[in-house]
């Protein structure tokens, strides 16, 4: 079965796609740090950063609707974490509600921080979508490797990415087999069945792991992870990196 990969659209061709993964990794990291460290009151800076990311998104030829849809996924998570801030932050009261004996009050500064958290996380997720949709995961991992992330981590991530869809297919087949035998009955029975399926999946994955290891041994694997270095840092990367960093610093200079 075909699955949509997290690096969907990474095989398009654009200026951004052709950049070295390391350039993009570092630029994304710098962008996120800059966004997070910008004080909440400086809304012009956020607008400016949004313009940078929007221009890059346009340059990357990603479908805008796809980017928007993906970026919205982050909101429920952030909202769940940040929703209580307006109630606890001290400051000027925006509204106060009495329910029987209890009193709930919302402050302006709390609401302001909530909005700010949302804006910041949205900008960060846009940056990450740009990174992950313009870089193949294999290249991204290679970039991470050359930036010094331990080989074992890279190997774990690459196995995860390689086999997550194999496992998804396996789960789907198990569900079909379950449903074709008239899955139903009491809630307890259903939970037990799902538990059994999880167990089976675990054992199958474990056995698959053993077989993969045998297949690696058969081709001379001795515990050392070796790769060919193929990434090339080109002049465009240097230019892009320099311009991007200047852009990030730009608002600090004019609005400081």
């Amino acid at each position, binding site marked *: 079965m075909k699955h949509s990969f997290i690096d969907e659209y990474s095989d398009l061709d654009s200026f951004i796609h052709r950049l070295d993964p390391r350039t993009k990794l570092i630029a994304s990291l710098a962008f996120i740090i800059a966004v997070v460290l910008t004080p909440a009151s400086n809304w012009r800076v956020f607008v400016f950063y949004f313009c940078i990311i929007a221009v890059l998104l346009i340059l990357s030829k990603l479908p805008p609707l796809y980017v928007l849809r993906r970026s919205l996924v982050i909101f429920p998570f952030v909202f769940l974490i940040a929703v209580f801030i307006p109630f606890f932050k001290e400051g000027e009261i925006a509204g106060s509600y009495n329910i029987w004996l209890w009193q709930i009050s919302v402050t302006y500064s709390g609401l302001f921080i909530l909005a700010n958290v949302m804006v910041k996380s949205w900008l960060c997720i846009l940056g990450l979508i740009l990174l992950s949709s313009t870089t193949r995961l294999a290249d991204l991992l290679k970039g991470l490797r050359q930036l010094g992330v331990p080989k074992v981590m890279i190997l774990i991530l690459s196995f995860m*990415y390689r086999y997550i869809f*194999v496992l998804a297919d396996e789960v789907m087949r198990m569900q079909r087999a379950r449903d074709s035998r008239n899955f139903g009955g009491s809630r307890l029975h259903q939970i037990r069945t799902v538990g059994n399926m999880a167990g089976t999946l675990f054992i199958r994955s474990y056995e698959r792991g053993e077989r993969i290891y045998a297949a690696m041994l058969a081709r*001379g694997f001795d515990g050392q992870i070796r790769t060919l270095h193929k990434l090339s840092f080109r002049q465009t990367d240097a230019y892009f990196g320099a311009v991007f960093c200047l852009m990030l610093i730009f608002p600090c200079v004019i609005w400081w």
Partner: protein
Amino acid sequence: MDKVIEIKNLSFTYPDGRQGLKNVDLNVYPGENVAVIGPNGAGKSTLLLHFNGILRGNSTVKICRLPVEEKNLKEIRKRVGLVFQDPEDQLFSLNVFDDVAFGPINMGYSEFEVKERVARALGWVGMGGYEQRSPHHLSVGEKKRIAIATVLSLDPEILVIDEPTSNLDPRSKWSFIELLKQLPMVKIIATHDLELVRALCGRTVVMDEGKIVADGNTEDILDDITLLKAHGLAH
């Protein structure tokens, strides 16, 4: 003539006490294509795993006169290309190139040579141009071909394949058999597929319950219906 594989009185017991192989004797000579047939659980796969030292039983297996021991493992794994049954296990990298290059990189070849070997191996199986594809999005037939390429890139002298035609439709199966025919090295193939055996292998070994129960000319063995019936290979 020099034997490429020499196994004398090999027995193997799994850690859980199940006996995988019992007193197996097998000699394979250069230029042979050997089919290993037998019912499920006969020990075919267990035997194959002894050819490159993934499993080691009580007696020495010799590959090209090298005993299968810790110090020879690298050399032996270069000479014996073992292809597993499920290509999902064989292909564990994010793209085809990395998978085919895995063996050569482990053997420490230079970058130039690795690339050359990958191109050659993919050319042999007719999959040139698939380097950057992700294994998950290939058809079963394509995965099987790439799986063969992952060991061909090491230029093995012996190609050991577990169930090469399982899950293939007849057309893919026959084009796969044609492909195997064109590969010059010694081939040892574990299978239930008697059509494949007849088309490809001159010699057939029948296994049942961990023992070799017959070994001889393919025609003779496949025409011996009583033998096949006795070991669950015909009904």
